[in-house]
């Protein structure tokens, strides 16, 4: 696999941490739900990566 860009990783980290913090302070979603949310985020970023590469 090609190297994952630093910027992409940075953005993902930021978004994930923001989501986690929001959930910690509201307890709206349980662990399973959070895992699902994170899965969606990663799938989304994976798409963006392809997009950026013009695929």
């Amino acid at each position, binding site marked *: 696999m090609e190297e994952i860009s630093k910027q992409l*990783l940075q953005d993902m980290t930021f978004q994930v*941490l923001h989501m986690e913090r929001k959930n*910690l*302070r*509201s*307890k709206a979603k349980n662990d399973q739900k959070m*895992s699902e949310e994170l899965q969606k985020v*990663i799938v989304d970023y994976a798409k963006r*990566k392809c997009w950026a590469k013009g695929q």
Partner: protein
Amino acid sequence: MRFESIALHNFMRYKGENRIEFSCEEGKNVTVILGDNTVGKTTVAQAFRWCLYGAVLTERGKRQEDYQLLNSDTLELMNADSRAKVWVELVAIDEEKRYAIRREIVYTRAFPSLMAEEFQKKLTMHISDICSSQPLVEVEERKVDELINELFPRNLSHYFLFDGERWSDIAINGVRENIKDSVHILTGLSAYQAAMKHLKDMGSYSVISKFKKKITGSGNLYDSLASECQKCERAIQSCQKEIRNIEVNISNYKKKCQEVQEYLEANRNTEALQKQYRDLGTLKKAQEERCASEHRMLVNEFSDKAYMAFAGPMVQAAMELVKAVAGERRDIPHMRQATIDYIMKGGRCICGAKLSPGTKEWERLLEQKNYLPPADIGSLLGEFERTAFRWKNRVEDFPEEAQEMASQIDGCVKEYEETCNEYVMLGQRLDAHIDFAEHRNRLRRYQVGIQELGSQKGQMQGKAQSYQRQKQHLEEEMKGLEARNEENRRWRERLELAEALYKKLSQDFTMEEKKVFKELNGQIQNNFRRMFNAKEKKIELSEKYDIQMYYKTEVGYREEKNLSEGEKIARNFAFIVTIMEYSKKRKAEKNAGAMQENDTLPIVLDSPFSKLGDENIRLIAKALPEVSEQVIIFMLKKDWGYTGLDEYVGKAYYIEKEAEKSYATIRKAEGR
């Protein structure tokens, strides 16, 4: 995070509803609540704690159940069917949200006795957006405690709900606090831990686990590899569980070792101990006698005078009536009983009117006789007056004297109790017939135990590692057998992204944690030195964020384990100021685009300066409004001047208690 308001309803001595709104102004972020001793400041300060965590800080020797939360006046008015509510509502705000927390208990009365019984308990929390007008969201009941702990970490509660008088080394439910996790919550590091948990650590529902399952293979070989893989995963988890158990056991053994070692150290010299024991016995007896004597004085004073004081208003009322009657007396000066007898016997009054028994005139003359000796109640009235005055004078100084005696008793009782505790412990040590050999054997056994467990742990870790390797091999094989299709390629890509994210989070977390620790440790020493002018002492955070104090000796620094009250307070102040300062700084950094989002906490202080000297008070007081987002402080009127905090005060309140009333009220101060 700031507190917006607190409202109390029938909470302890606060009858009805009382409310305080806190200053949230920038630059004037201090709210001060002043009141004299025993008027009810601590009750309000404890209301914060009770609302958040359902418990108040208890005095030595007393338990939660001993404190009656329902206001007594309200209780007195209840009958067997009544219900009364006690509630406290706390509203806090951060940048985005408003949090309203309400804890309520409904009581009934065990009529006719003055005892309240809990009938129903309720804890609710509502969150709303500050900016939008969207309706309140009610948090699910079972999540409220967890959420409260996230916003106001309970293990930090002794710091941000600071009690200057009631401090003791804290054990909540017998377990020593774990401050580290709470500090992580405050610094935003807990988000990292949560992310890592959801990405991988939580096991089969984690992101990585889920992604792995999506990758399909072709054929039976692939499927059997996949199931082998799962077996490995389960084996790894069970090894890890085993390892955790072993670690707990090791830590228990270590604790026991430490206990035995300390014990041996402390008991080396029995002869000196015996003399100490005898001396302590003598002291104890003397103190016991002193206590008894102080008690006797108060009992005597109380027995002799209390009833005179209690009768006050009644005596007053009776005196008024007596005076009114005495004033209406219409006795004739120099008149004698004999004179009236003579007139009556003669059957004719001086004015000439005929006198016969039963007539109005006759009755009037008889009446007059009552105002003359020996039937003179005038003199009886006079005696009554004199007794009333005598009672009043006897109790003129009674309040102050009683107060003085109460202080004396307290002093004696505290001293005596401390001595008793020491005496008992010393006695136990002497009684133990210290068999050094036996203790040493035990120590050896523990140490052997630790070694064995250590090697067991090592074995388990080895096993886990070999399963891990096995799993990796299997996964490699599986990768090779993977269906070479678009679907799998995508999932493989996502999986790698997830793994990369996990790795980054893990590295960042470790790095951040170290950085935070280093900064906090450095800052806590600075603050301690600055606020307490400490030259021979220093404080330091252990790995677990325990705050340890060290004092200088010729051979370096030694840990001080027995801190005085003043030292404990200094240590804790330094800690909380450091944490507050750090949070505030981080928050400012965040606005400049840094990664972390973190929290700040308000600080609520109850008589924080009562055990400190003037110098310290000034130094600390100055730091507070600068480092915290919000300061709420309860203190004596007379101490306020020493703080120098006037310019920071946004709102001020007084707690007042009228002499005849048993309840207190909170009043807002106008202007300042």
